[in-house]
């Protein structure tokens, strides 16, 4: 079984003997909207402690895939989580930060209130809870946002909200963290901070992080695996492998030539001959089976 070998390698490479074996397997996932197939025949495999970036053109079904995993929309196929120790199969616990989280900015609600609503059933209109406050502070601390605890949600900036929702999604600890374009509209300093944060979360909590991003250039530096999606999985592998992939290259190459500096990344890497830094520390398999299936669909 190539998969078992993989897990052994993973343990050797990362030194994380306690885990690396938990995984979420998505088999034959499809979402149909009306009569059109938004996504079909998606087969993916997320390991804990692994940072996967999903990329692809607009309308490729990236958000749809995330929504299906999060249980927001109906789907066909199977999503199963397997714990490494008990080998028990179950539904994964999901932390989901959607692309936009519309809410009423006028509603009286502080960040602490929001944590209380999510984490406790003690009626918040009567009681304060010290334990919720503590949890909220700790959780916000991991995303460097503890100073936001008593701010009103409607008064936060986009970046601040993003961090609050991220820390909320981490509570209680999920098996998979799904992030739908969390960095769109974040400035350069914010971007670096964000990716540093993600890397830290991954190392600390050993979770599978799945993120949608259009910024191939930057995300490839941090990701363990790149999934190129267009209705189905066209490529899934390490950033280095994704670089060599035909469909990935043709998409990002084309986008690159149309808009100079647009999607960026790939062709620059190719020309300069610099492999992305992540290549040295990535450790994932290219799921060849998915690759060929993807080409069939094309």
């Amino acid at each position: 079984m190539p998969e078992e070998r993989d897990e052994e390698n993973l343990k050797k490479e990362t030194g994380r003997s306690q885990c690396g074996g938990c995984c979420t397997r998505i088999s034959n996932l499809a979402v149909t909207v009306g009569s059109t197939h938004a996504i079909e025949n998606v087969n993916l495999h997320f390991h804990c402690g692994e940072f996967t970036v999903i990329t692809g053109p607009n309308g490729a079904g990236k958000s749809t895939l995330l929504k299906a995993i999060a249980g927001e929309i109906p789907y066909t196929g199977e999503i199963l989580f397997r714990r490494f120790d008990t080998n028990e199969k179950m539904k994964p616990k999901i932390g989901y930060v959607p692309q936009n989280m519309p809410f009423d900015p006028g509603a009286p609600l502080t960040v602490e209130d929001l944590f209380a609503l999510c984490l406790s059933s003690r009626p918040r209109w009567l009681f304060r809870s010290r334990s919720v406050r503590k949890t909220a502070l700790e959780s916000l601390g991991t995303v460097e946002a503890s100073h936001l605890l008593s701010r009103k949600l409607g008064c936060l900036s986009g970046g601040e909200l993003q961090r609050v929702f991220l820390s909320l999604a981490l509570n209680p600890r999920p098996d998979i963290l799904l992030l739908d374009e969390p960095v769109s509209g974040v400035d350069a300093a914010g971007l670096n901070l964000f990716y540093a944060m993600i890397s830290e979360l991954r190392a600390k909590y050993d979770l599978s992080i799945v993120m949608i991003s259009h910024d191939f250039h930057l995300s490839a530096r941090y990701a363990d695996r790149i999934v190129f999606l267009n209705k189905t999985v066209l490529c899934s592998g390490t950033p280095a492998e994704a670089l060599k992939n035909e469909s990935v290259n043709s998409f990002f190459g084309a986008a690159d030539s149309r808009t100079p500096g647009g999607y960026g990344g790939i062709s620059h890497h190719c020309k300069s001959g610099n492999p992305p830094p992540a290549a040295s520390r990535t450790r994932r398999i290219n799921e060849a089976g998915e690759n060929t299936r993807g080409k069939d669909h094309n």
Partner: protein
Amino acid sequence: MSGVWAHLCESFPFEWAQYSFMQNALLAAILLAPLFALPGCLVVNNRMAFFSDAIGHAALTGVAIGALAGIAQPLPSMLIFAMCLAFVISYLRRVSAVPTDTIISIVMAGSMALGIVILSRKGGFSRYSRYLIGDLLSLSAADLYIIGFTLLFVIAVWLLLFNKFYLISFNETIARSRNINVWGYDLFFSVMVAFIVTLAVQWIGILVINSLLVLPAAAARNMASKLRIYVISAVLISLMSCVGGLVLSFYLATAAGATIALVALGFYIFSFVPSCRITGDKKPGV
């Protein structure tokens, strides 16, 4: 119980407190205030003001159905009709792509027209016009018990489920990710609001009932940024409006429901201080 209350009221050094109809009405006002303010907070957050208004208006149809069935006391038929209507609106809102306010408008227009057609047969509508402005002073001791038990129920629900309701009103995606049955809670809340509004319509009046639900919460929202302060101050504003409006209506010899609404409006205007507004001398679009 009622004896203690009457005794307490008579010890007040006010003229109005000596009448038994005012004593009943005062107790009712004190009970109705939180009964409306607590759900009102969520009605405002969920943008359900139009929904509750429609339910209030539909009370007329409930009265009409009661009259058709030959029931002397139309309250049961009003409550059942309103709850059915709330169910229908919530259901249509979830399953259809038609904008919510259009759905409510259609349902309200239809039910009101039906009610007026039935009630105006043989020119008898004026008999029912008391429902339009309500009569808080006609309240009986039995009515007080109904209000009291409804309030206990609402407080119990608020103690057990408030966090879930408020999380749903904040964002349904987050609520769903916390395994909350959004649709079920939404339905339950709509039906509960319909029950409360319809119950009180005969005392407050169809035309102003919604102000009791919306104004205290809207005023509190202007002042609060914390959830607890929001809910508690909505209850306090509602209490002051209800008691103040009732007493004022005694001296002005006006309809209690509408006077309460005016006092609540006063609180709203007072709360509308430009504390959180962005200021500057260049106005957009000017």
